[in-house]
Structures are given as structure tokens and as C-alpha cells.
């Protein structure tokens, strides 16, 4: 068990270093923080809300992540295939799942670090008012889980092709679908002709439905389970795709 985590950590370290060896990490961090700040203080109406909370920040994250997470995850496997290094990686003495988990964890840690860098917004709120920091913490947990779910889907699409652009677009479309099934303008439209239980059942599949709980400060095990199962399922599917690709 110890040896298998050592291999996973070795892969994760290399993957993390790869982000910082190229400009990818810095471009990502700067764009993420700029856009997050922009949305929070303009469309989010940070000041106009008149409440000490991070709702203005968290409300925009599912949409911001929709583009940024696939951008961070698109290279994970397609780059290995393009360079041919997948042949090196998978002939080393490890199981395929270790490589999948190692790469996923590296990217997830990177995204969590990006989230953590939004701390000045938390500091601002605490300086201006008296927010419920428990709700903020649960909001961050939700945001990290959301990023993980999007990222696992990006892993999957990245394993499907050696072309990063295709991997990116597929991931955005899949993540968008997971948003839209619970996006109220759309569910309201659906509710006009479908029975309410059906609309509710469909919206249960949406990341938004489960993300909202965390933003209200409610840590519900069902929401946690939802995100963890999306990740597990997408990573499992990644393994199937890689195996099929090798079998030819």
C-alpha cells in the first residue's frame, strides 16, 4: 500500500512540476484571479448586496470553472499520447489506476491552490463586516469538490484524444450539460410541460443543485457523495478508455 502511494506521489509531483515549468500555471492563476475578482465585484454585486458573505464570489464559480478547469485538465492524457510518453509511463512498474489518480490529484491540488489564492476576498469581507466564516469554509469545500468533478470529466475527455482542443471542447460541453440540467431558467422551461417530479429528478444530476447546499453552509453527505461519485465514475471511465486505446 505504501509503495503504491509512493508511485502515485511521484507521478503527481512530476505533473505539478510540469504546470510550473511551462507558463501554464502562471497564466491560469492570473486569469483565474482576475476573472474571479471581476465577476465578484461587478456582476456579483459584492458591495450592492449589503451583506458580509462570499456569495458574489461563489455564485460565479460554476461558470468560471466551466472554462478554466477543462483548460487545466485538457493536457493530462492527450499530451502523454501526443508525445508518446504514455508508452514510458505505462511500462513502468505501476498499475494504470495509479497513473490516473496521480495525475488527477496533481491537477486537483493545483486548482485548490488557485482557490486558496482568492483569500484576499475573504479578508476583505472580514474587514468590512462580520461574516459567518463557517459558511465561507463550507463554500470553499463545495468549490473544491466542484473543481474536482469538472477535472475528472476533463481527464476523461483528455484520454479520448491526442488533440487538446478537442479534449477541452468535449469537457466544456459535458460540464455544461451537468450545469444546465439544474439551471433554473432551463428547469422552469421544462416544468411547463413535464411533471414536477421528473424535473426534480433530472435536476438532481446537476452540479448546481449539489453545489448550492455548500454555499448555504449545509454540509450534506448526499452532496458530498454526488461529487465523489462523479469523480470516481469519470476516473474509472478514464481507465476504460486508456485500456481500450492500448488494446487497439
Amino acid at each position: 500500500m505504501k509503495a503504491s502511494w509512493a508511485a502515485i506521489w511521484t507521478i503527481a509531483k512530476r505533473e505539478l512540476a510540469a504546470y510550473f515549468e511551462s507558463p501554464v500555471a502562471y497564466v491560469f492563476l492570473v486569469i483565474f484571479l482576475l476573472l474571479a475578482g471581476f465577476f465578484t465585484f461587478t456582476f456579483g454585486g459584492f458591495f450592492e448586496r449589503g451583506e458580509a458573505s462570499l456569495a458574489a464570489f461563489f455564485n460565479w464559480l460554476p461558470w468560471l470553472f466551466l472554462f478554466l478547469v477543462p483548460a487545466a485538465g485538457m493536457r493530462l492524457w492527450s499530451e502523454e499520447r501526443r508525445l508518446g510518453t504514455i508508452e514510458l509511463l505505462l511500462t513502468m512498474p505501476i498499475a494504470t489506476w495509479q497513473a490516473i489518480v496521480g495525475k488527477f490529484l496533481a491537477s486537483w491540488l493545483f486548482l485548490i491552490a488557485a482557490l486558496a489564492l482568492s483569500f484576499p476576498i475573504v479578508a476583505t469581507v472580514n474587514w468590512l463586516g462580520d461574516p459567518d466564516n463557517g459558511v465561507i469554509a463550507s463554500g470553499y469545500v463545495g468549490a473544491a469538490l466542484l473543481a474536482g468533478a469538472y477535472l475528472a470529466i476533463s481527464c476523461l475527455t483528455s484520454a479520448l484524444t491526442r488533440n487538446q482542443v478537442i479534449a477541452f471542447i468535449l469537457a466544456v460541453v459535458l460540464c455544461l450539460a451537468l450545469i444546465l440540467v439544474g439551471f433554473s431558467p432551463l428547469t422552469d422551461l421544462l416544468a411547463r410541460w413535464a411533471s414536477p417530479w421528473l424535473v426534480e429528478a433530472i435536476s438532481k444530476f446537476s452540479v448546481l443543485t449539489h453545489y448550492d447546499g455548500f454555499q448555504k453552509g449545509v454540509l450534506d453527505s448526499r452532496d458530498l457523495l454526488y461529487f465523489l461519485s462523479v469523480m470516481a465514475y469519470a476516473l474509472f471511465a478514464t481507465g476504460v478508455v486508456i485500456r481500450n486505446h492500448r488494446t487497439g
Partner: protein
Amino acid sequence: MIKVENLSKSFGSKRAVEGVSFEVGKGEVLGFLGPNGAGKSTTMRMITGFIPPSAGSVSVCGLDVQENPIEVKRSIGYLPEAAPSYTEMSVLSFLRFAAEMRGLRGEGRRSAIRRVVELCHLENVLGQTIDTLSKGFRHRTCLAQALVHDPEVLILDEPTDGLDPNQKHEVRTLIREMGESKAIIFSTHILEEVEAACTRAIIIDRGRIVANGTPQELKARAATGKLEDFFRSITRSDTVTESA
């Protein structure tokens, strides 16, 4: 050390390898010859466990590749075709990664890296990004990766491809020296290489073994006594369309 039995691989309806069997023992260097697309790389990929065979079996050091993939991979060093590497890494960090993946840590890792850096003459480019290296250095970096854990079995897919004549000579010498204590399979298009470095050669054409013997035996089978003529007489160029 390496035992290949009735190995076959089909991609869809295309049969890449058909019923290939051979053995390689310790102290043997097996040259793998054949025209492009004959199934050399596919066979090597099956031996290293990268792709599963459609039929047949491979065992390395007495262990079946399909049943004990991780143990088998531990004893193999593999240089894939075109010598891929993580091009954004430096040579040193790439070798550190390879050593760590092979379970080497601390002083063991440092001395292993020192050994392969010397063996592959990488001293002057250690800190350089692989991206910025010439093809010869990239090739040797990937070769160093295959040697870092001092494996008992070496699978080298075109190890001299893209090297200049001096570098080719060095790699051949290296293969011959290492062949004394390891089991090595290497593929090549260059027939002189077989004579220079191999104890035995297999010629493969359209997925089947068409000749198996020492370089001297194979040469003797050509009327002119040249390996090249023998090769040309039993393999078919891919520009010739199949009749019937």
C-alpha cells in the same frame, strides 16, 4: 529470460503479428529485423506489457506478462520507438522521475543516475530542458531512463535511429557490452548493426518470423554471402502490392 510463445495481435481486421515464438537467454543480444510495418514494434510493445496480445503469451524471467504485469515491468528497461520523453523537463529531473518510479530513493537514486549519465554521456546537458536538446541527446536521455534501474532485460526499439555515425557506434558498443550480462532485444533497419552487436537475429515480415539464426548463418543462406541480399530475398517491400 524472455520467452515468447505463439504471440499474435490483430488491430480490427488487420493482423499485425501472427504466431511469433522465440526465446532470448541471458548473455544474448537478439537483433530484430524487418521492413517497416512488419510488426517489430507491436511485438516489443507486447513484451513490455504496453499492449495486451490477442493470443499467445510472453513470459519474462519466468513470469507471465499478463498475470504479473508489475513484477515483469520491474525487470524490463524499455526504449520506445522515437524515444519519447517529457520535453518540458530537464534531463536531470526526468532521470530522477524515472529512478523514483523504479523505486530508487536517496543515495541509491543518486548513484544510479550518476551511472547512467556517465554511460550515456549526458554530463554536459544535465540541467538543460529536453526540448532544447539535439536528437542524439534526446535519444540518449531516453536510453538512460531505460537503464536507470539496471534491468535484467532490455527492449530497445530502434536505439540507433537518428544518431550520427559516431553515436551509432557508441550505442552499438554499449549494447554489446551490456549484452554479456543481460538479455537484450533491439530492433533496427541497419543490417550492419546486426553483425556488429547481435549474437542472434530474427527477421520478421508481415507479422511472421521468416528467419532466425546467428548473423553468420543468415549470411550463409544468401548466394552472395551478404546479409542485405538475404534480407531482400525473404522480405517484401511495402511498395509491392500483394498479388492473389
